[in-house]
């Protein structure tokens, strides 16, 4: 069951997302970085998610967490839908 984080948690999560984006968003395999449901279902709070176009992210040397927020890899290759 997912808990509802407070405003302080969201502020911390967005800072952590910015850190991830600054470091990984330019990588050709990374399509999106967001904050959302844990794809592994292990965390009761939302997690940081790196959406990958391809691969499993093993060459990215991703941190396991930032600011105590878990980092997860999720598959996603997006294109404009128009």
């Amino acid at each position: 069951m997912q808990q509802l984080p407070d405003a302080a948690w969201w502020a911390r999560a967005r800072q952590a997302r910015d850190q991830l984006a600054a470091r990984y968003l330019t990588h050709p395999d990374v399509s999106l970085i967001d904050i959302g449901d844990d794809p592994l279902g292990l965390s009761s709070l939302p997690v940081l998610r790196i959406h990958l176009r391809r691969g499993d992210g093993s060459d990215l040397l991703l941190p396991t967490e930032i600011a105590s927020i878990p980092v997860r890899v999720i598959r996603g290759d997006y294109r404009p839908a128009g």
Partner: protein
Amino acid sequence: MDQDRLEFARRQVAANQAVGEAVRRYLFDRPRQINLIDVGQSQATDKPKLVLRAHVEQFIERPQLESIGRPSVTDERIQGYEVEVVEGAYQQQLWGGWGSFSRRSDPLVGGVSVGAEDFPAGTLGGIVRDRATRRLMLLSNWHVLVVQWGLRRGQRIYQPARYDGGTDDDEIGTLERDAMDSSLDAAVALLNGRRQVSARQSGGRLVTGSGRPAIGMLVEKSGRTTGTTYGRITGMFGVQRLRYGWIERVIRDVVTIDPRDGAIVSSGGDSGSWWIDSDSGAAVGLHFAGSDYPERALALDMEEVLTALKVDMLALL
């Protein structure tokens, strides 16, 4: 025959009689454009309640009906049954052609085909107002209304899109401005007043205003290609790199939406659709991208879009 079955048979006979009366009154009254009358569950409540349903391809607003001397069918009761109007366009399914969402729409509603000259079709998300001038505009994506780097204000916009059969007579407005400089794939076009407007979506849903998305929120959208689909917000505050032509841009305030039940949530041509909170009716996201494997939709936080474009939602009509 037990008591329950007797009661069921009695209700069935009564419903059939009510349908017959409604057919005599309405089905052949052509200005009403009703294509089917049946008995079904009321859409106004989640509790079991049977009503008579008048199916129309497109809602006709009350003032328009009254101007031709027809009261709304919803004002009447027939043999004890309330009457509701539902949207439905039916045709023989001989081949997989375009759905009703690619047709001409007057009044303009959200969820129908729109496009710029000589470019593929997207979706008209809905109607908004310029905060400064109060003039009416339509809101969709940058890549639906602007399409190419270098194209600018004044470009003609059609409903339906040229690709869906739109003609010169279907020009509904001109490109006004976009939010790509704010890292949002969004744009507005100034309407030319040739058509009436409505705060409804093509599936019939009334948009009650705008709101913020939230993880776990159940949402729905009406789009030009896949019609009305249903999802659940699973992510927020996304930042993304996405290629538009030869230029890659960073897009911010991305909302991630997964299917509720494993069904499709979006496809090509749905860009510009508004994702709407299923509970409140508030528009919370502007659809702009998606993936098929896994099936997932991406939208932009609607409040950020409205702020960047300096527009407000249309007051309810």
